[in-house]
């Protein structure tokens, strides 16, 4: 005893001296391990309590730190390592009473459980009673299932009801006595006697009891994941496809994760014209690809809507209405129907054969400026009377109206169908949450110029973390969606940039279309710059799934194949 405590002394002293500073303990205890004995263990565990902190800010309590490490080791399956750590540090993951309690619960030794519960630690009256109730409830239900009604009744009478916890629950339990064991499982929403229900009982108790007694499961993993999440959100330029972040260093993407360099300038004939669709008598102002990319809808500026088949180049149908002045259209995600709206104050739903499926009209319907359908087909968003955003829930047939103060020039919906983006004439872009019931203020993005033209913007990057827009000062603006910070302003175009479109599968590429008759493809700045191509008149007013031509022709790419079709 004397020898042991001698060996125990130096580490003790060392620890007491160096209390306020950093990671002292382990070195000290390692030397003590060689001659470890129960006395040394106890001596160390006494002093290594309360007060000692770990880490450079002194925010982490050493006891808690070691305990969650032990828990992580045990849950990974390294029982021996965990046991050694417990011994070395003198800090047990859980007191022997708790250990016993856990085993009793999993084995179903209810009376021992009740006894241990009172020994576990200092518990508040209400917590103690609630925990006791849970344990006894399990005992009760198990007896019932085993058709041991008398034992169950006994438990209910003498143990559960005197607790005085939740009389309604007690009545409910009493009602279970009078049903068949088969119905019991369904009625009580209970999984039946066995490991599974006992495990879930354990988890419920864990949530109930204070964490210092029973450390919540997987605590260390949870803390690390929270830290990674914070790093991810703080990373302004985050635009990578991989989900797993390294633990070795703080995650921080650099600016070269967003496309800032022009990869390609596409001018006119460099895209080989596959088809020229003629047939509209007014300028084509709106174009929409079908979700399966086989068909194209085109809308004249306050004119008819035409459906084109891409493989044949034929106009399959012309959708007309008296006084047709359609301005925009949107596909349903099933690719079989679409809606169109315009200045005649009606929205029509059509199918591919030219049949009108549904119409929204009436005295209260306003003039429609822009339409979109969310990718899950649940909401139809329309811009009405320049200033109102109407979000119509197609399944529930309910509507939500957001009133903007200034006129809206364009609308764009995010791919996950939760957000919408509107460009305003007042040189702001507003981001609204479609499903939010409350009238939250939208996120606003400023800095670009617009006033005369329809300028389009869109979401981009992995997780749609970026907002990108064209501008009348010939530049492309990129903002960070969450904090509204203007990340980059890209120059290159020599005319108003009308429309942008981010590559849906490659988060490092987007395209912009401008009044200087070119389309630019933008990518990461460490890629080589490819060649330029020749000129051709005909300005472009949009890109990808949205090309608004200023002329009557529609230019498309791919194989050299010129054919005029109607």
């Amino acid at each position, binding site marked *: 005893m004397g020898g042991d405590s001698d060996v125990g002394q130096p580490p003790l002293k060392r620890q007491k001296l160096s209390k306020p500073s950093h990671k002292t303990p382990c070195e000290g205890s390692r030397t003590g391990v060689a001659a470890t004995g129960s006395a040394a263990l106890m001596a160390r565990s006494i002093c290594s309590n309360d007060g000692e902190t770990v880490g450079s800010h002194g925010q982490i309590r050493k006891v808690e730190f070691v305990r969650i490490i032990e828990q992580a080791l045990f849950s990974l399956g390294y029982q021996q390592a965990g046991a050694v750590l417990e011994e070395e540090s003198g800090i047990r993951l859980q007191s022997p009473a708790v250990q016993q309690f856990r085993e009793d619960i999993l084995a179903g030794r209810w009376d021992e459980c009740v006894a241990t519960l009172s020994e576990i630690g200092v518990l508040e009256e209400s917590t103690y009673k609630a925990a006791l109730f849970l344990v006894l409830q399990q005992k009760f239900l198990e007896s019932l299932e085993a058709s041991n009604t008398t034992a169950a009744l006994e438990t209910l009478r003498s143990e559960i009801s005197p607790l005085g916890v939740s009389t309604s629950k007690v009545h409910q339990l009493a009602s279970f006595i009078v049903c068949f064991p088969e119905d019991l499982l369904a009625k009580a929403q209970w999984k039946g006697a066995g490991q599974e229900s006992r495990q879930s009982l354990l988890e419920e108790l864990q949530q109930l009891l204070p964490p210092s007694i029973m450390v919540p499961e997987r605590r260390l993993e949870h803390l690390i994941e929270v830290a990674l999440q914070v790093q991810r959100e703080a990373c302004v330029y985050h635009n990578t496809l991989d989900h797993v972040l390294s633990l070795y260093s703080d995650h921080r993407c650099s600016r070269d994760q967003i496309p800032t360099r022009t990869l390609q300038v596409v001018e006119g004939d460099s895209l080989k014209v596959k088809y020229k669709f003629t047939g509209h008598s007014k300028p084509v102002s709106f174009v929409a690809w079908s979700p399966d990319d086989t068909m194209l809808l085109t809308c004249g500026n306050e004119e008819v809507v035409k459906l084109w088949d891409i493989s044949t180049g034929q106009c399959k149908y012309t959708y007309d209405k008296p006084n047709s002045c359609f301005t925009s259209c949107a596909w349903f995600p099933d690719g079989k129907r679409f809606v169109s709206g315009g200045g005649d104050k009606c929205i029509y739903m059509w199918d591919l054969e030219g049949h009108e499926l549904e119409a929204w009209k009436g005295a209260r319907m306003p003039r429609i400026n822009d339409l979109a359908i969310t990718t899950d087909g649940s909401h139809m968003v329309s811009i009405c009377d320049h200033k109102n955003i109407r979000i119509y829930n197609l399944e529930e047939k309910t509507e939500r109206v957001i009133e903007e103060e200034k*006129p809206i020039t364009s609308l764009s919906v995010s791919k996950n169908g939760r957000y919408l983006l509107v460009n305003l004439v007042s040189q702001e872009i507003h981001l609204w949450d479609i499903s939010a019931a409350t009238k939250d203020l939208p996120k606003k993005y400023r800095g670009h110029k617009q006033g005369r033209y*329809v300028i389009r913007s869109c979401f981009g990057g992995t997780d749609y973390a970026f907002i990108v827009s064209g501008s009348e000062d010939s530049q492309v603006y990129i903002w960070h969606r969450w904090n509204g910070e203007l990340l980059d302003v890209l120059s290159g175009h020599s005319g108003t940039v009308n429309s942008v479109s981010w590559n849906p599968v490659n988060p490092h590429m987007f395209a912009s279309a401008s009044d200087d008759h070119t389309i630019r493809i933008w990518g990461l700045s460490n890629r080589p710059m490819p060649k330029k191509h020749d000129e051709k008149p005909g300005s472009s007013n949009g890109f990808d799934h949205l090309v608004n031509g200023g002329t009557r022709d529609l230019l498309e790419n791919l194989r050299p194949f010129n054919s005029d079709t109607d």
Partner: protein
Amino acid sequence: MGRLYLIQLDGRIYSCRHCRSHLAQCDELVSKSFHCRHGKAYLFNTVVNVSVGPLEDRMMTTGKHAVADIFCNSCQQVVGWKYEVAYEKSQKYKEGKFILERAKMVDGDGIDTFHFSDGDDE
């Protein structure tokens, strides 16, 4: 050029004579008794589809004002001006309002009107 964003108005409206884009609603009319170099002019509370030019000080019959010419968004013609600042107290009511020249507008129902040149500057 790109796709112009033009606001459509309802009801009785005044449109640009040249390109017929909507300029103002009858409800927004404040006064018909203004004059400009080319004839009559109307004072409106708000107008749409115009862009504002550079600000300059001008001496008018009613005093010195800071005004900016306004141009129709689609055809770029000067259609009037906007009062930014009125230096005389009695003229303060005009601040922030717009003048549209009668000669540059057509009425909602499309009937052209004559313009008489009175010769006075406003």
